[in-house]
C-alpha cells in the first residue's frame, strides 16, 4: 500500500495540537516542519521562542529549542547564531511578542543582518491572555481592552510589520502571507522556505509575517474568522514580498 500522507519527520510522532479549534498556529507550525524536512536541516536546527501561544512550538516540533523571556526571542537567537554560526536558527513569535514588547530586539536583529529566520503570527490580538489590544489590532476592532473599538485618539495605529522589517538594510527577505485558503497556504510555505534559504546562503535576515485567525478571541467560527482575514486584515496588511535579495 502506498503511503500518500504523513506528518513531517521533524514533528513529534505522538503530538496532538492543543490550540483552539480553527486556530492557524497548527498550520503554520506544520508548514515550518515540512520545510525543515525538505531542506534536510532538522539536525542542524536550534530554535528560540518566547512567550504567547507561540511558546507551544516546543511541544510539537522535535528540534533543539531554548526559551526566551517575552519579546526576547530574537536576542536569544542572535546569541545562539553568534555562538554557533554553523547552525540553522529560527524564531517563532506572535505579533505582541515580535512587534510590541520585542520590537527593539526584532528590528535590531534585522538591522544587524543576522543570519536568522523569524516568523511572526499576526492575529491582531493577544491570544493567550484572552484577546487584548495588541500592536496589530485593526482600527475599530473591539478587544477586551478596547471595548468600544480601536480609535486613533485612544490607542494609536497598528504596525505593518513586514514593511518595517523590509526597510532594514540587513533584511534579505521579508514577506507577508496568509493561511486562509489552500492557495495561500501553498504560497506561505514557499515564503517560509525562502526565509530559511536566505539564512542558509548567508544573505541575512529572513522574515515572514503570517496572517492568522484567532476564532476564539474574535468570537467567530473558523470560517468566519478566515473571512475576516480576507476582508478586514488583508486591506490593511496586504500580502506580498516586500524585500528579496
Amino acid at each position, binding site marked *: 500500500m502506498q503511503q500518500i500522507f504523513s506528518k513531517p519527520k521533524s514533528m513529534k510522532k505522538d503530538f496532538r495540537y492543543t490550540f483552539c479549534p480553527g486556530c492557524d498556529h497548527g498550520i503554520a507550525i506544520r508548514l515550518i516542519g515540512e520545510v525543515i524536512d525538505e531542506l534536510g536541516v*532538522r*539536525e*542542524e*536546527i*536550534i530554535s*528560540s521562542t518566547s512567550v504567547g501561544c507561540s*511558546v507551544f512550538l*516546543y511541544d510539537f*516540533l*522535535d*528540534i*533543539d*529549542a*531554548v*526559551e*526566551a*523571556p517575552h*519579546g*526576547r526571542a530574537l*536576542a*536569544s*537567537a*542572535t*546569541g*545562539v*547564531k*553568534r*555562538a*554557533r554560526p554553523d*547552525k*540553522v536558527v529560527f524564531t517563532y513569535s506572535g505579533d505582541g511578542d515580535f512587534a510590541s514588547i520585542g520590537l*527593539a*530586539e526584532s528590528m*535590531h536583529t534585522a538591522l*544587524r543582518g543576522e543570519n536568522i529566520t523569524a516568523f511572526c503570527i499576526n492575529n491582531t490580538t493577544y491570544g493567550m491572555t484572552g484577546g487584548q489590544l495588541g500592536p496589530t489590532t485593526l482600527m475599530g476592532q473591539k478587544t477586551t481592552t478596547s471595548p468600544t473599538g480601536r480609535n486613533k485618539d485612544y490607542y494609536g495605529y497598528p504596525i505593518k510589520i513586514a514593511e518595517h522589517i523590509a526597510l532594514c538594510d540587513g533584511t534579505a527577505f521579508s514577506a507577508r502571507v496568509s493561511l486562509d485558503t489552500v492557495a495561500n497556504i501553498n504560497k506561505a510555505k514557499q515564503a517560509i522556505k525562502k526565509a530559511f534559504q536566505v539564512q542558509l546562503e548567508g544573505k541575512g535576515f529572513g522574515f515572514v509575517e503570517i496572517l492568522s485567525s484567532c476564532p476564539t478571541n474574535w468570537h467567530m467560527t473558523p470560517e468566519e474568522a478566515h473571512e475576516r482575514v480576507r476582508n478586514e486584515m488583508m486591506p490593511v496588511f496586504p500580502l506580498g514580498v516586500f524585500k528579496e535579495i
Partner: protein
Amino acid sequence: MTTEKVLIKGNYAIAQAAVNAGCQCYFGYPITPQTEIGEYLSGKMQELGRAYVCAESELGAINMVMGAVSTGVKAMTSSSSCAVALMQEALSYAASDELPVVLVNVMRTGPGLGYIYPAQGDYNQAVYGGGNGDYKIIVLAPSTVQECVDLTYRAFYLAQKYRNPVILLADGLLGQMMEPASFGEYPYPEVDVSGWALTGAKGREARKIYSVAPDEKKQIQHIYDLHKKFEVIAENETTYEEFNIDDAEIVLTAFGSMTRNIKAAMNVLRSKGIKAGCFRPVTLSPFPHNRISELALKGKDFAVVEMNMGQMFKDVKYAVDGKSKVDLINRPCGEWLSVEEIVAGVERVMQGGKAYAANI
C-alpha cells in the same frame, strides 16, 4: 600567557581574564563605569575570531548571552547597576533554565539613574535578585584588581560546573583603578557540556531548555531541585577571608574593594590596643553564614563596613542571630569610607555609640 605583573585597570583585567577563560561571545551595551570592558573586548574578540555584539539594550545583551550559553559556549555580558536592573528578568529565566550566564556588574550609585561614582548598593540586587520566583545566583565580589582576574576565571568555571548564573559584583572604584596583576593560565578544567547543550538534534533526542511548566508537580520538584543544587554549591564553594580573627573582640566585615580599607583600619585599631579582626566574604551568595555564626558564638562583635545603607549588614545580623553585637559603619555612595572614618566608627560603636553613618 605570562605570570608577569602588569599595571592594569580592573575593567580591562576582567575583560582580558574573560578572554583567557575562553569566553567565546560578549554582548553588551555601554554604561559608565564599566564601558572599558566592552571597548576592550570589541577589538579583542574580532582579532580572535570570536563573537561581539553591540546589543540594542541590556535586555538584548543578557538574552543574547542566554542564547549563546545554551549552545554550550562560554559567554558574558557586563553592565552597571541601573542597567543590571534591566537584566533581572533574564537572570530569573537563566536560573530556572540552568544556563551558565556570566554577568559582570561594576556598581555605580543608585537608586534610579543615580550617578557614576562608585557604591555598593547592588548587594541586595545581586544576592537576592530582582527577578521573579525562587532562584539563586552565585555572586563573587573581588576586592583587588588581581581578584578581578581570579574571580572572573572562577565565575566562568562555576557557571558551567553548576549550570547556574554567576554575577561578578565589582564596583566603580575597582573598575577604574589600576593595580599590578598577573593573569597566568585559566586555572580550571573545561566542564563537559555535551549532556545538555543545544547543538541540533543530530543522532539524539531533541533537547528543550525552558521554564514553562504547566504541570504543577514538576514545577514544585524543579524548584526543590534548584535549591538542592544551591545547597551543594554552598557546601562546596562558600569562600571567605579572615585576618587576626582568633583573638579579635570586634570583627570588621566588608565585601569587595572596601576590604582593603578595613584591613588598614584593623591595623590602626590594633596599634591602639583594640583587638580588631577582619572578615570578608568572597562569595556573597552563597554567604558564609556558618562561619559568622561560629564567630558570634565565640562572643565576637561585628562592625559591618559598606557603601550602602546596610545591605550585607542584614545578612551578618541574620547569621549572628542575636549571639553578639552587630553594628553598621556606612555611607550610601561616593568617596569610600576612609581608614580614619572606619577607625572612628569602630571606636564609637565599641563605646556603645549608635551606628555610624557619615553625614547623618
